[in-house]
C-alpha cells in the first residue's frame, strides 16, 4: 500500500542530496510496526511516496494516521519543520 508522507530535513541539491547532518527524511513520526521504502519524491511539495508492508492492524493504523490528517496536522503532530530547500531561507 502506498502513502504520501511529508518530508523534513535540509535539501542541499536537487540531485537530490540531503545534508548529512540534517538528512531529508519523513517527518519524525513513529509509523508503527511496518516496513517501508521510498518509491518517489515530490521535492517541490516536500512529499515522499512510500510503499508500506506490515500486518493488517499496523496497516490500518498507518492508514488512519496518514490519510486522516492534513499535511499541516502531520507536521504539527511530529514537531518537525518543513523541508528546507536550496536557496530558500
Amino acid at each position, binding site marked *: 500500500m502506498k502513502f504520501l508522507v511529508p518530508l523534513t*530535513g535540509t535539501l542541499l541539491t536537487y540531485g537530490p542530496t540531503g545534508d548529512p547532518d540534517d538528512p531529508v527524511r519523513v517527518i519524525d513520526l513513529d509509523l508503527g510496526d511496518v516496513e517501508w521504502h521510498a518509491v518517489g519524491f515530490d521535492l517541490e511539495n516536500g512529499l515522499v511516496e512510500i510503499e508500506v508492508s506490515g500486518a493488517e492492524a499496523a496497516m490500518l493504523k498507518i492508514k488512519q494516521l496518514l490519510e486522516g490528517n492534513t499535511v499541516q496536522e502531520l507536521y504539527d503532530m511530529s514537531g518537525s519543520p518543513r523541508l528546507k530547500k536550496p536557496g530558500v531561507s
Partner: protein
Amino acid sequence: MRDPSLEAIVAANDDYRKGYHDGNAGGLRAVDTDLAVGNIRQGKTVFGLPGTVAAYHDDAWDGGIQSAGLSTVSHKYTETDIDAGDNYQYTGHPLTVVEGAVIEAFGMAHVLAEAINKLKMQLLIGGVLVAESGYISTTGYSVKTVMGYREGLAAGDYTVALEVKNYDTETRWVRRISYYLGEGSVSA
C-alpha cells in the same frame, strides 16, 4: 536423380527431414547468422559455439553495473546509547555515479536491543532516507535488514548509511555484533 528433390536447410524453420537435404558448406552459421557466440549465454555451447553473453545481460537494458560493493561498517561487540528520538549512524563507502544512475542498497545488522518495539533500522542514500524496517522485536540477538533504492540521480557522489532510530521517549542502547552495507549502482 533427385526424387524427391533435395531441400536447402533454412533458418526459417526447423523442418530437417531425413534424406531430403543437401547440406551447406558454410555450416549452420551460414544458414542462420543468429547462431553466433554473441547470442549464446556464457557457459553454454551450441553446435560447438561457446556463448559469450554474461548471465546478467538483458537486451532491453542498455546500461550496465557501474559499481558495487559491500561495506562492513562494524563487526565488533560494542554498546551504543541512543537518545530518545535520536539515531546512530554507520556510514558506508561513497559511490560515484553518472547522470540518471540508479543506486540500490541494503543494510543488515546483527544486534541486541535493550527494548522491544522501540528501535528500527533506517537506510539513507546521499543524505536522503529511503527505507525503514519494522521494529526490532526482541531483546535477544536478532538480524534486521532494510532495503531501498534511488533512481534518476544527478551525476556525483552518494554515500550510503545505515542508522538505528530510537522511537522511545528515553535513551536506549544497542549492542552490535555486525553491520553490513551493500551498495550498487547502474547507469541509465
